[in-house]
């Protein structure tokens, strides 16, 4: 059984963002990049199935420029067998639909049974690619998975949603998108890192229809929050002050 893990290179969200003076984009000069965290969970889920002997081959795939091969190397170092980069010059200009089109165009000729993805990439948080892909391929897709198990031709997923926990079964081929999982993504070992050098990365030309893309018009930081009001009085006077304050603001 062959699986694909979709991985995307995104800015490390731990680093404070700056916006370019003309508002066209964030300032990317001082950013550091990482694999999108939900992709890491999805990759880990796939690696676990591979460790358990349930996958014969795991391929990491990204749609991006040369610089985005970093995340493919990371996936290879962690244990993916090979990697594919669908070459695009300016991946940031692609919206979810166009990204999914390109993946679908490549994937339809491949003998692949499962696609692992993150529930969203943490840069644009669009959460679209896996569902568009499901549409193009005609495969079932489920998101917010936190664990999975492969049993013959069925993928069993544990999901966590606002309504509670759920166990679902999907017939293969299928697409699964991961939330923060019940397990931690592994670190690559030194051996893995050294071996990753010798594993192939295929670079393929983008195929597929090109529909009109969503264009980013302007970016801005959220307005700074005003300082709050602090009461230093004792109970129960502080409660009274709070009630008076809320009434004054017509909030209660």
């Amino acid at each position, binding site marked *: 059984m062959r699986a694909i893990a979709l991985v995307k290179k995104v800015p490390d969200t731990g680093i404070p963002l700056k916006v370019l003076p003309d508002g066209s984009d964030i300032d990317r000069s001082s950013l550091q990049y990482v694999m999108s965290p939900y992709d890491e969970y999805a990759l880990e889920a796939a690696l676990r199935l591979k460790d358990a002997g349930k996958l014969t081959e795991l391929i990491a795939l990204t749609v991006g420029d040369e610089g985005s091969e970093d995340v493919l190397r990371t996936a290879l170092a962690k244990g993916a067998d090979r990697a594919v980069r669908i070459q695009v010059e300016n991946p940031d200009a692609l919206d979810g639909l166009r990204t999914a089109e390109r993946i679908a165009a490549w994937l339809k000729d491949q003998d692949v049974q499962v696609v692992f993805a993150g529930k969203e990439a943490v840069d644009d948080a669009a959460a679209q690619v896996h569902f568009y892909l499901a549409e193009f391929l005609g495969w079932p897709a489920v998101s917010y998975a936190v664990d999975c198990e492969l049993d013959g031709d069925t993928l069993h997923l544990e999901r966590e949603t606002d309504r509670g926990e759920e166990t679902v079964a999907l017939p293969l081929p299928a697409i699964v998108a991961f939330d923060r999982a019940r397990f931690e993504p592994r670190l690559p*070992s030194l051996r893995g890192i050294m071996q990753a050098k010798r594993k192939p990365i295929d670079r393929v030309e983008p195929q597929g229809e090109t529909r009109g893309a969503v264009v980013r018009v302007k970016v801005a930081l959220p307005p700074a929050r005003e300082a709050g009001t602090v009461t230093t009085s004792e109970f129960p006077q502080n409660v009274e002050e709070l009630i008076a304050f809320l009434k004054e603001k017509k909030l209660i």
Partner: protein
Amino acid sequence: MDYLHLDDLLNEEQRMIRDMVRQFVDREIMPIIGEYWLKGEFPMHLVPRMAELGLFGPTFEEEYGGQGLDYLSYGIIMRELERGDSGIRSFASVQSSLAMYSIYRFGSEDQKRKYLPRMARGELLGCFGLTEPDAGSDPGSMRTVARREGDTWVLHGTKMWITNGSVADVAVVWAKDAEGVIRGFLVEKGTPGFSTQDIHTKISLRASVTSELILDEVRVPEAQRLPHAEGLRAPLTVLNHGRYGVAWGALGAAEAALDEAIAYARERIQFGRPIASFQIIQQRLVDMLARLTGVQAIGYRVAQLMNEGKARYTHISLFKRQATRVALDVARAAREVLGANGITVEYHALRHAVNLESTLTYEGTYDIHTLILGRDITGFEAFS
């Protein structure tokens, strides 16, 4: 803090190694280190994890359990580990650069095959016993003796300040034979007459095991002698290798302390302003930055020389001397910026600073490296 973007000199694989060790430290060391440090305990559960990640003996060839790693990568590993704690880095240094390297460099093929792969997997732990109660900077004056009786050597003496001493499965012990020639022996835990005693009174390197080794007529076969080690040169060669990692480690501790001080100074408000906006604080931070950056550059250059096989022991002395001194000064100054918070283990600067006191002393004290460099540039020896 990497002000000159020296890490841009890393290749892709070196960057991945850095990120891997950094994440390991963030996830698995930072949450627990303060507590272990206070308890005066080494977090033993990290050993199998470090082995799994490949952090023991990574520079050796694959047949000996390594990955044939270059020396810049090795330095970066040590730097990142000590960003966590000097005790953790010391553990890795002793295992890789002192114990394993002694066997790698001076052992027989049989010894290498017997010990190195298992040490790389963390199944066997090693220590390096050179220092004695009365022989520190002057190891040539050691009193531990090795008496030959046919095919057996009888070791007698005491080793002091030995990192990982009581947890080690195999101790590399240096002793003088009847002719006064220093030789190395592999003494396994449990050998009759061999015992250890931990030193519990340390106020530096607390998350590290430091022991006394007691050798009371310990009998080891000739096959346990390191055949290619003859004279003081042998342990000094090993130490030279080890102190390259010590120097990189010190950089990690200093970088962590400086980062912490800058972040704190920007947040901490006194007199209605962040303390970072006061000139005295800025000057302190900039002095730290400037001195640290200088040593980082030395580190990168010495790494290049190591990789080219051109590093002289004096180059490593310079690096070790500067790195440990500057790191200690930086960590101490960082502590001061943190005010009262700086004296707790919830912050890291003081833990690093007191740890660095050990690094200033072990693997050749600051003074000894001064004398080594002094001899090198003047031609006059000033040791005695």
